[in-house]
């Protein structure tokens, strides 16, 4: 075991897989040994693997995504780093309209083993924080990973690189150079589509990913002091969504709070909430609350940005709202 940051864990996962599999190469802007990627997101990879496997590109997201898809079709297993989730839109048509559909539309003859990396999330950066997970999660055929800690980040990255489908991998900037965690040195993966119960509880289920999962754990700690037992479920991948684990938890607690750094409008967790309601609402009373980003563009000034975002306080308030009244 070694103590790694989120960023170190992601890179270790990539590095291990690149050593195992010659077909993997990494495409991106400024990812070579001079700059090592935005926020050091490719640190050491250029020096280790050289310019034939760590390939720098001009600022051309649409061509970069397309190039990743094409190389995947021709037998490679590319990683394309788009720097920030904001830039996903620039490469969305080849990814969402073409790559996502290829397996199904080709009747199972064409697969696209491609990992797209993006940084996002409110944190140290004064920009580029927008969480555009809904853009990619709303199209069938794209997997979406949103890890909340170094161990999951490495395991999910290794799973993504062994998957035969397009995977968009979200790397949260507030977690990136944050807390270290014990990360196994032996080979392991965290399968896409497998939630983890990060904290057990019996009164209410809180579902959250990435930074919000960390906030939910803090909220659960605080609530425990008030005599409320919260179970925190981290889906770890938004697509595929492990509805079964959430369903089992909510069947027990009958109370569900979903917390998202994204807007509630079009939020994939709102979709999860609807599915849970569909499955469980008929059996007995079911209480639901959603916590998300204020439904406006993200404000800039720090006090505004903080107030627009969900946090420990808004999570605990939502939990109290659906526990006190019953």
């Amino acid at each position, binding site marked *: 075991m070694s103590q790694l940051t989120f960023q170190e864990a992601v890179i270790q996962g990539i590095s291990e897989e690149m050593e195992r599999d010659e077909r993997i190469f990494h495409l991106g802007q400024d990812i070579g040994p001079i700059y090592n990627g935005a926020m050091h997101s490719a640190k050491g990879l250029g020096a280790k693997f050289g310019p034939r496997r760590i390939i720098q590109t001009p600022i051309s997201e*649409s061509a970069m995504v397309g190039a990743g898809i094409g190389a995947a079709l021709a037998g490679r297993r590319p990683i394309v780093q788009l720097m920030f989730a904001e830039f996903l839109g620039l490469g969305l048509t080849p990814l969402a309209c073409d790559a996502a*559909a290829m397996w199904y*539309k080709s009747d199972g003859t064409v697969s696209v083993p491609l990992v797209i990396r993006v940084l996002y999330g409110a944190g140290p950066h004064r920009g580029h924080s927008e969480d555009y997970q809904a853009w990619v999660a709303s199209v069938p055929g794209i997997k979406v990973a949103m890890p909340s800690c170094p161990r999951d980040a490495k395991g999910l990255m290794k799973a993504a690189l062994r998957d*035969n*489908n397009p995977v968009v991998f979200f790397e949260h900037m507030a977690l990136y150079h944050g807390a270290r965690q014990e990360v196994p040195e032996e080979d392991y993966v965290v399968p896409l589509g497998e939630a983890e119960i990060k904290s057990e509880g019996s009164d209410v289920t809180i579902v959250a990913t990435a930074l919000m999962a960390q906030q939910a754990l803090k909220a659960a700690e605080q609530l425990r002091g008030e005599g409320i037992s919260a179970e925190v479920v981290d889906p770890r991948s938004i697509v595929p969504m492990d509805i079964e684990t959430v369903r089992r938890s909510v069947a027990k607690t009958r109370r569900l709070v979903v917390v998202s750094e994204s807007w509630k409008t079009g939020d994939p967790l709102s979709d999860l909430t609807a599915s849970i309601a569909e499955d469980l609402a008929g059996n007995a009373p079911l209480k639901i609350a959603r916590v998300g980003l204020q439904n406006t563009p993200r404000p800039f000034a720090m006090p505004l940005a903080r107030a627009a975002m969900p946090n420990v306080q808004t999570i605990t308030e939502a939990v109290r709202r659906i526990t006190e009244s019953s």
Partner: protein
Amino acid sequence: MTPDANLLTSLYHLVAKGRVLESLLGKLPGFHPGVGEEGVVVGAFFGLKDSDYIAPHYRGALLAAHMRGADLRRLIAGVLGKVTSYSRGRVRGDICLPLQFNTLGMFSGVLGNPLNISTGIALAASLDGKQGVVVTSFGEGTSNLGAFHESLNLAACLALPIVYICQNNGYAMSTRTDYALKCASVADRAQGYGMPGIRVEGNDVVAMHQAVQSAVARARAGEGPTLIDAVTYRISGHYSADPNDYQPKDERASWLKKDPLLLLKARLQAQGVMTEAQLNEIEKAAEAEITQAIAEAQADPDPGLEVLGPDDLYSPVLERVA
């Protein structure tokens, strides 16, 4: 360079077949026929290795896929959404092609995506280091998309083995090339990317073939991409039901005289390669073959609902670690 009789004969077989295919399929609803543009298609994709990849423009896509070995009846079944098609009816087969023939089609209706994606296939070919090349074609309308700019620039930066062919038929739907492009030729744009740009009379299938082959040789030798502006004319409407009444009569009349099939026939006769009777014989054989393929495809069954495959969203295989 004088092309030999065998080459001319092979090209003629394909252009004649293309003409019948585009004319007959143009009678089906919603088809985007390429009558008059067969010279570009045949010239672009003839003479490649099986291991090379192509990504043809949607106009003429079936002819291109057939040239790569795809079965005509199954391709046409794809246009009709029949279960005998390569996708069993899951994708529109008029624009999406079977990749098992190293032929990339459109998995959506978004122009420019195949340009990006074929550039990635060229990147893989470059990494493989086996002298493989990619030949892709697209309309002049698509050359106004960001995807065109990004792809060509990226291919130039990485010296990728790819040939970009603009099938310039004068019209993007109803928008004329002289309205939407202010350079004299699409080939002029190549200068901005630091690659050769060549303008070719696309209706001269021999000139077209020779231009593409020299660009292919350049790509194979590791010297990077080339842009070819293949000038042709859209005799068909944009799609089957388009009255195409916006093409000026005199313009159309002058291009009809430069029909690629007529030009090639005249050349074959002038060089004494074939007589008019022999040429007509080949056209008749093509017509019979394609008429039969259409009839068979039309008689093929629609897909059963088992093809819906609601759980068939992902490739299930997790890659085994070596």
